[in-house]
């Protein structure tokens, strides 16, 4: 307990590492949150486009066009335009003042006048093009075969979707979640910093502290286990802080299975600490080079798990499936994802099993090197 407690103190007071393993993920989470919030906010804040129609005789007589405009200007969820029917002078004054995005004039054909280009103007143009296209199609069919008129009109009034959204659970599919899951995976892998620090402080050929500890009458396995337990404790505590922040402050959903979320975090942290220990024992470079390799490895793994591009994980799973099975970050991300999205735990436990297999392999290989008690040179 003495050695465990002091090891914990030692690691927890390493401010630089605490920044990278705790504060940095919290900052990233906050940035993700605001970026997605803005994106979602923009979608939710869509307001109907103001448009003025010149109330000419042609407009009054063109019932089809009036009905079409009426349908898309009806107040409600699908309202696309806010229609103002007025005389030509007033219509162009509204356009000049910026009160409307365009002025529609109806003569032999339908015309649109805009004062600038933009998204709203493009939408208006697309709407009018669609109307013109449909009008031409329908009048063409009716001219050729007037008998189908009734059926054609019924068909046109129906909006039919040929794809269906299916959910595997009661959870709402959310593409932004993968970013947060990949962020947790990154934080778990950043536990590797603690594993790396442990190996440096343990080996006589890497640090004077390691030499002093190696000369002490304590079994090497004991030192390894105490250090590993301390690294795991601090790494897990950091992931818990991040999870609490995501769940309670940023309201990110992880489904309703808290124990499985904890299990994923624990196994993820074991994978992270093992990765650090593995790099620390097998890479025979300076401490700075080892840290660089650890950051590079964990960031690449997190990138492939979808930290920066949400479709990356699926793309890797389709194009290079083996990579998905050996990438701890992808396994952690997928474990969270499958917890959220699937009712069944089969895929979740496959991920956990693979993570444990990878972690135990790295741990055993590291210990085989660490247990060496004497060194060829110091």
């Amino acid at each position, binding site marked *: 307990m*003495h*050695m465990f407690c*002091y090891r914990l*103190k*030692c*690691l*927890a*007071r*390493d401010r630089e590492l605490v920044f990278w393993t705790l504060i940095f993920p919290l900052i990233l989470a906050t940035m993700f949150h605001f970026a997605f919030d803005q994106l979602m906010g923009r979608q939710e804040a869509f307001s109907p486009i103001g448009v003025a129609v010149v109330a000419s005789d042609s407009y009054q007589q063109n019932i089809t066009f009036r009905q079409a405009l009426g349908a898309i200007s009806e107040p409600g969820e699908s309202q696309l335009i806010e229609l103002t029917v007025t005389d030509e002078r007033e219509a162009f004054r509204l356009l000049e003042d910026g009160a409307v995005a365009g002025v529609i004039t109806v003569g032999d054909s339908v015309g649109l006048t805009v004062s600038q280009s933009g998204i709203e103007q493009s939408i208006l143009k697309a709407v009018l093009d669609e109307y013109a296209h449909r009008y031409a199609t329908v009048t063409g069919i009716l001219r050729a075969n007037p008998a189908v008129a009734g059926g054609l009109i019924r068909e046109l009034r129906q909006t039919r979707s040929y794809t269906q959204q299916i959910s595997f659970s009661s959870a709402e599919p959310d593409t932004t979640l993968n970013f947060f899951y990949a962020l947790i995976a990154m934080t778990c892998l950043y536990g590797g910093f603690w594993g790396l620090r442990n190996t440096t*402080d343990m080996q*006589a050929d890497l*640090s*004077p*502290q390691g*030499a*002093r*500890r*190696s*000369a*002490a*009458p*304590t*079994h*090497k396995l004991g030192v390894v286990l105490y250090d590993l337990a301390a690294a795991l404790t601090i790494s897990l505590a950091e992931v818990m802080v991040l999870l609490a922040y995501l769940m309670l402050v940023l309201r990110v959903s992880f489904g309703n299975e808290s124990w499985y979320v904890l299990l994923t975090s624990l196994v993820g942290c074991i994978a992270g600490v093992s990765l650090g220990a593995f790099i620390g024992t097998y890479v025979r470079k300076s401490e700075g080079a080892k840290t660089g390799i650890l950051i590079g490895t964990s960031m690449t793994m997190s990138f492939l798990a979808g930290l920066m591009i949400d479709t990356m994980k699926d793309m890797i799973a389709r194009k290079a499936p083996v990579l998905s099975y050996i990438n701890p970050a992808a396994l952690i991300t997928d474990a969270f994802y499958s917890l959220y999205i699937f009712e069944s735990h089969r895929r979740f436990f496959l991920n956990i099993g693979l993570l444990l297999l990878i972690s135990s392999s790295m741990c055993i290989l590291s210990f085989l090197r660490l247990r060496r*008690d*004497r*060194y*060829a*040179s*110091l």
Partner: protein
Amino acid sequence: MLVSVHNLVKRYGDLLALDHFNLEVGEGEILGLLGPNGSGKTTTINCILSLLTYDKGAIEVFGKPMAPDAYESKRNIGIVMQNVAVFQELRVDENVDYFCGMYVYDAKIRRRLVDEAIDFVGLGEFRKFYPKKLSGGLLRRLNIACGIAHKPKLIFLDEPTVAVDPQSRNKILEGIRELNRQGATVVYTSHYMEEVEQLCTRIVIMDKGKTLAAGTKEELKAMINDGETISVELYVLRADDVAHIRQMPHVTRAEYADNHLTVHYDGGQHNLLNLLDYLRSRDLSFGRVFSEQPTLNDVFLEITGRQLRD
């Protein structure tokens, strides 16, 4: 013998670091291990501590073969490394407690030992300080406290006073003497001849992985040709007087430059009286007179050679 090293051979690739090296350390000694850079002092200590592998030879500590799992022997050994081996994230008292805890498991006993070690090295007022707040000298003292807190019977100190101010150095040397008085056997390596001369009861001079000479400081001084050196402040001295002085008994060299006559002897008695009698007989008026006995530095340079080393 507390430590016995027999025919120890250690190679770093093509470099022969220890060449059939032998060493014996008796109980209660303060043994000084002297040698130029790269002579094998630290390698010897690391082999004895079972930190390094070696190619040939045998090492016994407390009469038992030394091995990484010789926990009983290790329990009675204290080490003070050349590089400061403390954790920057732990305070002074926590560092001492941590390393002491690797030897002493009883928390109550350990608390007492930690307090004693901190007082011993004079870090009482700094016990709540983090290492980065300590000066170089205080840091070295902390390094020592971490190595000796568990009251070991055998202590290895590998250049513990490197880059330390004179006050801290004196404190450290006093401490080592005190440890020895309390019954600890000390193996001490240093580059500072005067430290070894003041401190050590026996000295081993090594170079290129071999023992060149061993004995008390008096025995070592007796091994070299140099005796005392006498310097006399003289304003006038003729060349024939210098030539005469060179012919006097036991004189090995005599030079006159910058109004100073310097005469080197290879032994003999009453050299100073004889020289002054001669100067008076020649009516030569002289100023200040100095007589210096050979130092360990002279012995070291004589034995290891005077050419520069890397």
